[in-house]
């Protein structure tokens, strides 16, 4: 790896971009994810009905021409609710992963770069954070702080900060010892500049790969919390909440649970394929699979 | 030089191909040589010339996913090893033929004690088990001069230095008293003083046991000190083979000449050093004729076809694969 390629920020993105294009599974996954993002963004125009509009006559109606995926226990259109639910899911998970990347990444780089006591204390704190099972911590935060979308994002972010801090710290430790960082210091660059310009690009590969996989985890956590009844509040549509309602009516109208389940599965497969593909292309040992 | 019956190992027309992006290319082609008991044959050439692939082909350790032997025979006491299946080869590896690798730091299993790794070689080839295998393994470690071997028997590789690990590797290779030992750059990764110790150890062991040794190296200084005969490889072809003094005194192949004049020597001026112009062609673009032709000052049209390896009229033990030089010699003879 040449010093120039290492030291420019574009490297990570370009490498991963090229990786996706040359990796069948990754590009298939990326396609699914793009479709999901589009359908979530365009939900207000794509949805044939209002996701909140109730109709007693259509309670638990099976799929029909007008309501292709049927209606839920309030007679609401399931297709519309899936589209709008995807919007909430995407919003919550993307925002929490971005915050976690930013906070966790910064903490990890700082810990690795500064080292010493600071590093030890910070990483010990991360270990404490990791001592709570992800979902249990999410449950507690939302239940205690109140079930708002903001707290949902806070809860999911809290579960993801420690892993990102860890993954950012490891490469920082090795990059810190390399010649171009020494050279930067000798030239009198500020620590901030060294961290942002020289260390960040080397950490970015790992973080982005993990970001795709954690997006899947975040969507799963959000859905799980909503399924338990402590996530997105009804009547707002969310996939987990819809599956919960479907589960309550599973004997009479199994499609209520099945359609949103399929939606989650498609997105999860897409994200995991993308994340796996990215990891393959960024890990030389697994390349050429 | 010797009767066929005395030859523990003869390689005949060995060709091994590798798959690169879906197509098969010959990494070594038509390689033939033999080694006698108590003889050391040095296999020399630049890195990537096919020395290690030759050794792995003899061992049957060419990675199956993208490599295979496409032609030739590997005769061990007259028995061809190439058609043998994996189970049959397992009985031969580490028993009749064993191998020492270049990287002592990574060649030992980090999660198994070194004594166990030595004893393991005995377990599958001899009737020794349990305490007997342990005692024999300990004797081997002492024999290769691992200090306080008894105390360190159950230590792990990370607790040993590179030189000591290479001694352990040698003990493993010697465990079943093989007829042939393949040493693939066994000293390259070591410090110079340790190198000398390990070379001395190998020479000593060879003369004790009378085994044959194929010593792979790119270091001509090492060749001069350890080899009886030398085989020179270039880009997958064996191009010259001769007794060691003969080769150093009268190199025949233009590549061998260039190789010898490219090493610094105290008895020559630095001005005599001649780097070889040009580069080895990539495996995907090898010429079908002489592979050195592109860089060769003696090139003639006939070089577009592959020359045979022929013995010189003056000395049949000196063989060379070159249209021009083989012809010159026959004429002069």
């Amino acid at each position, binding site marked *: 790896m040449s010093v120039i390629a290492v030291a420019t920020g574009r490297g990570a993105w370009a490498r991963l971009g090229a990786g996706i294009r040359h990796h069948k599974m990754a590009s298939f996954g990326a396609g699914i994810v793009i479709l999901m993002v589009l359908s979530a963004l365009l939900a207000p125009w794509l949805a044939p009905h209002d996701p909140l509009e109730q109709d007693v006559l259509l309670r638990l109606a099976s799929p029909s021409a007008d309501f292709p995926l049927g209606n839920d226990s309030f007679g609401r259109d399931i297709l519309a609710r899936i589209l709008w639910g995807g919007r909430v899911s995407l919003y919550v998970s993307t925002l929490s992963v971005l915050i976690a990347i930013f906070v966790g990444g910064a903490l990890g780089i700082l810990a690795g770069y500064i080292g010493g006591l600071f590093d030890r204390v910070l990483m*010990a704190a991360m270990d404490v954070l990791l001592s709570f099972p992800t979902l249990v911590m999410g449950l507690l935060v939302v239940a*205690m702080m109140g079930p708002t979308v903001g707290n949902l994002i806070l809860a999911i972010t809290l579960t993801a900060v420690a892993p990102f801090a860890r993954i950012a710290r490891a490469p920082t430790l090795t990059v810190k010892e390399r010649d171009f960082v020494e050279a930067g210091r000798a030239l009198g660059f500020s620590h901030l500049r060294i961290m942002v310009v020289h260390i960040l690009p080397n950490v970015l590969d790992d973080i982005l790969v993990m970001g795709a996989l954690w997006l899947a985890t975040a969507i799963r956590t959000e859905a799980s919390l909503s399924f338990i009844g402590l996530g997105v509040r009804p009547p707002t549509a969310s996939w987990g909440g819809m599956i919960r309602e479907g589960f309550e009516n599973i004997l009479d109208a199994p499609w209520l649970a099945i359609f949103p389940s399929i939606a989650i599965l498609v997105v999860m497969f897409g994200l995991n394929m993308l994340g796996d593909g990215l990891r393959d292309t960024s890990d030389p040992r697994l390349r050429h699979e | 030089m010797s009767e066929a019956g005395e030859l523990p190992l003869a390689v005949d027309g060995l060709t091994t191909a590798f798959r690169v992006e879906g197509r098969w290319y010959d990494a070594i082609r038509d390689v033939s040589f033999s080694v006698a008991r108590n003889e050391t044959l040095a296999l020399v050439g630049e890195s990537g010339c096919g020395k290690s692939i030759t050794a792995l082909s003899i061992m049957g350790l060419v990675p199956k996913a993208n490599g295979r032997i496409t032609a030739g025979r590997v005769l061990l006491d007259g028995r061809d090893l190439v058609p043998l299946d994996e189970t049959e*080869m397992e009985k031969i*590896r580490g028993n009749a033929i064993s191998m020492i690798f270049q990287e002592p730091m990574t060649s030992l*299993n980090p999660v198994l004690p070194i004594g166990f790794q030595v004893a393991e070689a005995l377990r599958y080839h001899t009737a020794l088990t349990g305490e007997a295998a342990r005692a024999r393994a300990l004797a081997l470690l002492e024999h290769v001069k691992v200090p306080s071997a008894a105390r360190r028997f159950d230590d792990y590789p990370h607790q040993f230095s590179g030189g000591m690990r290479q001694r352990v590797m040698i003990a493993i290779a010697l465990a079943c008293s093989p007829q042939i030992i393949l040493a693939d750059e066994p000293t390259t990764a070591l410090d110079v003083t340790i190198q000398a110790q390990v070379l001395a150890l190998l020479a000593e062991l060879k003369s004790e046991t009378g085994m044959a040794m194929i010593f792979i190296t790119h270091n001509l200084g090492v060749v001069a000190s350890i080899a009886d005969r030398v085989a020179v490889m270039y880009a997958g072809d064996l191009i010259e083979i001769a007794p060691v003094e003969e080769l150093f005194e009268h190199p025949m192949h233009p590549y061998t000449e260039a190789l010898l004049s490219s090493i610094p020597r105290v008895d020559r001026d630095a001005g005599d050093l001649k780097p070889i112009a040009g580069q080895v062609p990539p495996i995907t673009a090898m010429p079908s004729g002489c592979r050195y032709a592109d860089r060769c000052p003696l090139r003639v049209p006939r070089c577009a076809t592959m020359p045979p390896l022929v013995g010189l009229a003056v000395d049949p033990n000196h063989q060379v694969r070159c249209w021009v030089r083989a012809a010159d010699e026959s004429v002069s003879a």
Partner: protein
Amino acid sequence: MLPYIVKRLLVAVPTLLAVLTVVFFFVRIAPGDPAFIILGDQASPQALAAVRHELGLDQPMAVQYVDFMSTVLKGDLGTSLVTHRSVWGEIANVLPYTIELTLSALVIGVVIGLPLGVAAARHRNEALDYAARLFSLAGLSFPAFVSAIMLLLAFAIELHWFPVISEGRPGDPWSRVNALVLPAVNLGLIMVAYVMRVTRSSMLGVLGEDYIRTARSKGVPARVVIWRHALGNAMIPVVTVVGLYLGVLIGNSVLTEIVFNRPGLGKLIVNSLNQRDYTMLEGLMVIYAFFIVIANLLTDLTYGLVDPRVSQR
């Protein structure tokens, strides 16, 4: 090995203390007054103050903290605000259900996932490998409650092979085992996916190592090369992932217990959250964190067994 064990134990103690501290402050900073929960909205201010006094909530934070730490460290988790029964008693009632569920999932995951991962690596890019990779992708993608609902729908509701409510009848061990099958399979299959995946990629890396070639050059049979030489080394990352996965496993057990209507910590925590039973939640968090710390400790000790470089450092 012994100094290593002692060292890991000593490291676990401060982590556990830090975890308890977090639990204490987390419950205290959350909005809501436990006295309200106990007495309801209509309670008189005097009654509320009396309850607060009884709970020690009128004490300074530092006093409360010392109080909390000393009682918890004595093994006393207090009484439930809602049922007024011992928190530890309530937890102990359902703990065996959660433990048997997670342990069977762990066993299923390792017993199936490990050989499957080894086989996939040995037969890289063959049909078996593709099938195994597809399965692991599915395992990673299925939220535990979705797979649980599907298993329930297929094997309990449609086929009637297993009970819909996975509790089992008291005094009937067979019914308890029968009730365990579906939830354990649900958690176990997801675990298989994780274990298989990390085993496969770790084995692929190890199979290319020099010491594998050395083992083969000794004439060690292929089977032994794979299981002793390769897996011995490939286990190191597998142990890491299994250790990290235990947190996910506990989270998934909550979802599984809800779907299969099975007693356990999961149902207990959801009920306590809905009822805002603070002391019960404190107790549950302590128990969960204790589990994770123990799991990390076991992971570290397993490292010591698997990798001689760790235990002798």
